[in-house]
C-alpha cells in the first residue's frame, strides 16, 4: 500500500466547548466554535491577532459539521469563519457522517504534509438539540439508504443492534459465551460513563451545569440492564449521546510547531477506509480476511490465528472492514509491525455503541476477531463498577477512552473525531487535570496513541497514529 507524509505534522494545541450538553441554548453553533478555538489559541500563548495573521499568511482552516438539517443552516462553516475573524484565508469544509471530525483533522494534516499550509486550525461542531431526540434519530438514520433501508424501520440504534446480534450469532459458542459478551458490554458502558465523571466538561458529568440528574453521575453494571432495551440486544446505556458541542485542534509543520510549543505530538500514520453503506451488501466471504490480504504483520506470524481466519466469514455484519483497512494503512505508514495492543499507550475510539468498542479493537488488530470481549469481561468489579480508567489487556495493554468517549463525554457528530484528537493531545501533554478538573483519568506518560472515527454503520472510518515529540 502506498502512502507517506511528505512533511512532519504536529498537533500543537486543542480546545473544546466549556461544557458538552444535551442542549445548550446559551450558544449558537459558531459561538460554541469560538469557545473551542479561543482555548486552542490561548494555549499556544498567541494573541488572536497573531494567530489570525499566521492562518492568513501561512495557513488554512478546515471546518467540519455533519448534518445541515440539525442546525437548519447551510454553509455554516462560512458563518463560523466570519465569527472567528478568519477571512480571507484558505478554507474548506469536510464531511463524512460520524467520521466527519476525524476526516477534517486528517484533511488538516494533509494540507500541512503537502506543503500547502504551515499551520491549520481544524474546527468541528454540531448542534443537535434544536430538534427533539426522535426527530434527531431520524435525521441520523438518513445516513442510511433512504430508498431501501430507511423505510424499513430507519433507526441507527437498530442497525447497530443488528450488527451486535450478528456478532453474537457468529462468535457465541465459538470463541465466547453469550454471558461473557453481555458482561463485557455492561462493563464497557460503565467504564465510559464513569470515566466521564472525572471530566467536568462531559455531558454526563454531574459537575456539568447542563447535565440533568437522570442522565449524569456514576453507574453500575446493574443500571445498564435495567435501562430498558432500545433495540435487541442493546440497552439504552449501551448507546452514545447526542450532543451540542464544538472542538478545535491546531496543527503545524515541524519548524513552526517547535516555535509554538515544547510539547508537539507528531503524526506517524494516517489511514481511512470504506465499506458498503447497506450492510447487507458487505461481503460474507469465508476466509475473506486472508484472501483479501487484510491481516496485520503480527497476525500473519501466528499460524493458528491464520487458520482460524481462513474459516471465518468476513466481514459480514459483525465487523468493520473499513476500520481494518484504515488501520492497516496507518500502521504501515507508521511502521508498526507488532501487536498494536502493546504498541500504543492510549486510544480514543468511536464508541457509538458498546458493541463498537469490541468490534473496533478487533478491527485494529488488538484482539483476534471474536475475542475482544474477554479484554473487558476480565475487568474486576467493586460495587458493580469497574476501576476508573483501567488498563485494558493487562500490563502490556493500553487505555481506552479515558475521556468517557461517545457514551460518557459527547457525540456532537461533526466535532467528535476532532474531540478525540484533542483528548489524545491533552493526554500526551499531561493536561488532563488542568482541562477536566481531575487527574484520575490522566494516562501516565503516554508516548504513543491512536485516534479513530467512524461513520454510518462503518461506511467511512479513519485511524490516525501519533507519538510524543519531546
Amino acid at each position: 500500500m502506498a502512502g507517506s507524509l511528505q512533511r512532519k505534522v504536529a498537533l500543537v494545541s486543542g480546545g473544546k466547548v466549556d461544557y458538552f450538553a444535551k442542549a445548550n441554548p446559551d450558544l449558537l453553533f459558531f459561538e460554541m466554535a469560538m469557545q473551542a478555538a479561543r482555548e486552542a489559541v490561548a494555549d499556544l500563548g498567541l494573541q488572536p491577532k497573531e494567530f489570525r495573521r499566521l492562518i492568513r499568511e501561512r495557513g488554512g482552516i478546515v471546518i467540519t459539521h455533519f448534518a445541515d438539517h440539525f442546525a437548519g443552516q447551510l454553509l455554516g462553516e462560512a458563518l463560523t469563519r466570519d465569527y472567528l475573524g478568519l477571512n480571507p484565508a484558505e478554507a474548506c469544509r469536510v464531511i463524512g457522517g460520524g467520521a466527519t471530525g476525524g476526516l477534517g483533522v486528517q484533511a488538516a494534516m494533509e494540507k500541512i504534509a503537502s506543503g500547502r499550509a504551515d499551520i491549520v486550525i481544524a474546527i468541528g461542531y454540531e448542534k443537535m438539540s434544536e430538534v427533539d431526540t426522535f426527530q434527531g434519530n431520524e435525521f441520523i438514520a438518513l445516513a442510511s439508504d433512504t430508498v431501501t433501508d430507511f423505510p424499513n424501520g430507519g433507526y441507527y440504534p437498530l442497525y447497530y443492534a443488528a450488527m451486535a446480534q450478528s456478532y453474537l450469532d457468529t462468535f457465541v459458542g465459538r470463541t465466547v459465551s453469550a454471558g461473557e459478551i453481555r458482561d463485557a458490554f455492561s462493563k464497557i458502558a460503565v467504564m465510559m460513563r464513569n470515566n466521564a465523571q472525572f471530566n467536568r466538561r462531559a455531558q454526563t458529568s454531574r459537575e456539568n451545569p447542563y447535565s440533568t440528574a437522570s442522565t449524569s453521575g456514576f453507574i453500575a453494571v446493574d443500571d445498564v440492564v435495567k435501562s430498558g432495551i432500545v433495540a435487541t440486544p442493546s440497552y439504552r446505556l449501551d448507546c452514545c449521546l447526542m450532543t451540542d458541542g464544538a472542538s478545535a485542534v491546531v496543527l503545524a509543520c515541524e519548524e513552526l510547531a517547535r516555535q509554538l510549543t515544547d510539547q508537539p505530538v507528531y503524526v506517524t500514520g494516517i489511514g481511512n477506509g470504506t465499506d458498503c453503506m447497506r450492510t447487507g451488501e458487505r461481503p460474507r466471504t469465508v476466509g475473506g480476511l486472508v484472501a483479501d490480504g487484510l491481516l496485520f504483520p503480527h497476525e500473519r506470524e501466528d499460524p493458528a490465528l491464520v487458520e482460524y481466519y481462513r474459516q471465518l466469514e468476513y466481514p459480514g455484519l459483525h465487523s468493520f472492514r473499513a476500520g481494518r483497512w484504515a488501520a492497516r494503512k496507518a500502521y504501515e505508514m507508521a511502521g508498526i509491525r507488532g501487536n498494536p495492543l502493546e504498541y500504543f499507550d492510549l486510544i480514543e475510539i468511536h464508541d457509538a455503541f458498546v458493541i463498537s468498542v469490541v468490534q473496533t479493537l478487533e478491527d485494529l488488530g488488538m484482539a483476534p476477531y471474536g475475542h475482544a470481549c474477554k479484554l473487558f469481561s476480565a475487568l474486576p468489579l467493586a460495587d458493580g463498577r469497574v476501576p476508573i480508567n483501567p488498563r485494558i489487556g493487562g500490563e502490556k495493554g493500553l487505555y481506552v477512552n479515558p475521556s468517557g468517549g461517545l457514551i460518557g463525554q459527547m457525540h456532537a457528530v461533526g466535532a467528535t473525531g476532532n474531540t478525540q484528537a484533542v483528548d489524545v493531545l491533552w493526554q500526551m501533554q499531561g493536561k488532563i487535570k488542568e482541562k477536566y478538573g481531575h487527574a484520575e483519568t490522566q494516562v501516565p506518560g503516554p508516548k504513543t496513541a491512536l485516534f479513530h472515527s467512524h461513520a454510518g454503520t462503518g461506511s467511512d472510518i479513519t485511524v490516525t497514529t501519533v507519538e510524543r515529540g519531546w
Partner: protein
Amino acid sequence: MPVEDKPLDPGDKAYRPAKTEVLIVHRQVRIGYKKSYGGMSPYIKGIMGGGDARLLYTVCENAGGHDRGGILRFQVPRADCPECYGRTRWEQLPDGARFYVNTLSTAVELAGISFMDQLPVTVAWISAVLPGPEGAELDTLTAGMVRVEDYTRLKKGDELRPVFRHSPRASASDAMWVLKGTPKEGWPEGYVQSKNYRV
C-alpha cells in the same frame, strides 16, 4: 421553503439561561420532494403489485469482470454492476425461492419519529436462495420489516415469506415479511399475499 417562527415557552426544560437571557423560538419547516426511483423503479413497481406483486433482482453474468469471478445477483437490485460496470439483467424471484433471516434486531422502546407508533419494529437482513439443484444464494442481503407474534423467538435461519401492501405507497416498505406458514390473521394489517409467493 415556508418557515414559520413562534415564540417558545421559556419554561421549556431545555431553556437554561446563563449570562445572557436567550430567546428561543419554535420553527416549523415544511419540505416537499418529488423523488424518482430512477433505474431502481422496476423493483419498486414490482412490490407495489399487492396480490400480483413480484420481487425482482438483477444479475450480471460477466464473470470475467468480477473480482472473484462468477455470476453476481443483487437484491436490492441495481441497474449497473459495481464490478464490471456493465448493465445488469432483471429477473423475478420465483415462488420456489427461499428466504432466510441472516441477522435481525427489534426496536423495542425507541425508534425514529416515523416508527414510534409502530413499536416493536423488527427488521431482518434477509438472504434469498434460488430454487433448483444448485440453490444459488443471492450475493447481497436485503433489509425488511418482519411481523411476528413474539419477536423474541425469531432467530437467524428462520424461513420468511413476503407479503405486500394492498394499497401501495411506492415505498420499500410495500413489502414486509412473515414466518413461513403464518396464517392470514398474523400478517401485518393492510398487507396481502401475492399470487407469486405463497406464504
